[in-house]
């Protein structure tokens, strides 16, 4: 082996160890709840905890709602910008990047000010209102990823010609988006969706300040009160996040079948 190659392998191994060793250590620790050897008791204890089930399913529902609401906003918006207002693309891109620039804590304090019980739109006055606000907050958080994923999907198809071909065959705008555009960017859309899910499952700041029992808040609670369960939870949430990422990779293999251009 050439020295240069050896060095690059060493650096890679060091980098990999930096990520993997703490993970392995956490995993190993989560198995040591009993003195007499490794068991999955910490996991059993987590999975059988009613608060785990409640918070996890709540996060999942809010995440799915955030994905659906986000798609309803992002797909038509990205489509219209590509079709009718390409000169607005840099501005729209900048707007979609704002959630990355503005910290979540500022966002949530803004919400609390805007939608408190004495405001014209007192969303925070009811449970459902707060749920809706949390969902919308997640839509905003996911916007940069969602918009980019959808826009990348749109770049792979000839939006204008497909739109016109469907239009002259009698289709209206809603039908064109639903039947022609959306199915051709579905892979990109799903990758945006899994990314959103990964973000929502781990989110803590906004949910905690809006007083919602999401998975992130539950993890924090358990972490403050138990020894081995938090390690098990960390591994679980890691598996979920990477599962979502793995789904994105898997989906990329089923990229849309595009027309041959010759």
């Amino acid at each position, binding site marked *: 082996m050439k020295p240069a190659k050896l060095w690059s392998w060493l650096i890679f191994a060091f980098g990999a160890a930096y990520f993997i060793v703490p993970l392995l250590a956490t995993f190993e620790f989560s198995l040591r709840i009993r003195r007499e050897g490794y068991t999955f008791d910490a996991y059993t204890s987590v999975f059988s905890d009613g608060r785990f089930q409640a918070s996890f399913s709540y996060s999942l529902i809010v995440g799915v709602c955030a994905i659906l609401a986000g798609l309803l906003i992002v797909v038509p918006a990205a489509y219209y910008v590509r079709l009718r207002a390409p000169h607005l693309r840099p501005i729209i891109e900048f707007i979609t990047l704002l959630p990355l620039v503005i910290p979540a804590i500022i966002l949530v304090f803004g919400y609390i000010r805007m939608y408190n019980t004495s405001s014209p739109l007192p969303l925070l006055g009811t449970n459902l209102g707060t749920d809706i606000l949390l969902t919308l907050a997640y839509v905003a958080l996911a916007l940069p990823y969602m918009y980019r994923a959808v826009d990348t999907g749109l770049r792979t198809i000839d939006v204008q010609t497909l739109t*016109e*071909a469907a*239009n002259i065959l*009698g289709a209206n705008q809603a039908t064109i988006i639903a039947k022609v555009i959306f199915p051709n960017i579905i892979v990109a859309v799903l990758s945006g969706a899994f990314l959103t899910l990964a973000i929502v499952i781990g989110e803590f700041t906004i949910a905690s300040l809006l007083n919602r029992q999401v998975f992130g808040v539950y993890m924090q609670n358990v972490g403050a009160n138990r020894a081995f369960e938090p390690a098990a939870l960390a591994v679980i949430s890691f598996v979920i996040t990477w599962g979502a990422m793995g789904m994105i990779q898997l989906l990329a293999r089923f990229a849309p079948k*595009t*027309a041959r251009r010759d």
Partner: protein
Amino acid sequence: MAEEFLRIDKLVKAFGGNQVVKGVDLSFNKGEFVSLLGPSGCGKTTILRMIAGFERPDSGRILVEGKDISGLAPNQRKIGMVFQAYALFPNMNVADNIGFGLKIAGMPKPQREARTEEMLQLIGLSGYGKRYPFELSGGQQQRVALARALAPSPRMLLLDEPLSALDAKIRVSLREQIRQIQRELGITTVFVTHDQEEALSISDRIVVLNTGNVEQFGQPFEIYNRPQTRFVATFVGTLNTLNATVADAGAKTVTLGGTTVTIPALPASARNGEAVALTMRPEAVSLANGATRDIVLDGKVAEVSFLGSVIRLKVDLGDNAVNLDTFNDQRTPPPAHGAPVRIGIASSDVLVLER
């Protein structure tokens, strides 16, 4: 008298101050196959897109069977369109592509499937319904695009350079197929192309366009043999130009290569001593071996191109040069490079282009 189907009235369109369609007037008959022919950028696509409703005219009207369609959105116009880039829906198989317009129109499934099968047979692709567009060749994709456009029985068909992305061989066979299907259905068709041979070979009539203006509108035979402007004469087909001088304008005679000949087409506005350009098609010039032509000139063979059934010779006449076409004859080899030849031209075939 043929029935008028589509009328275009003083149509004008500009993009950001740049006028690309400059007051176009046209009238097409029912069932007619008309080509819009012109160089790239002359406004062909823009006119077609205004007929389809994708662009809004700045002024002027488009009437179908006497009714102004300006207020209708593209999806209300009942027009079929085929695009250069095929534009099949990649997520749908061939049958679903063809059935798309029928589904939108609310046709029940059994009728839709029957109609789709009928269209597949029409384009010679029955059995291909379950394939996806990416599994088809360019020519097959374009046939599916044609079937998709025709399936809802539109009242008019628009094709924007549908063949320009295909190989030469497929281009010719597909254009014949398009023409045959069009005849069978009797559908009024507007075909955009920049290829003069394509336009000449399949059209009932041709609109020759240049920089947003109609240069000439007529049958291929007229366009080719009686071009009304210099642009048409040079854009459509090959043209020879011989420089001559008017000898006697009243008697319609000119001096050409030392001899005086009568040119019936000499315009009344010509003045004695004025330089004029005499033009003629290569096939109007013949090797004068025994031919009875009233203009006879001597020259030398400058180039010989063997094109198969036709041989094109370039003959150097000293101050002029002409291209001429003769048929291939298996027993007579073409004259050699540099050989002296005598050519003949019928003066009645000579055009004098004024503008």
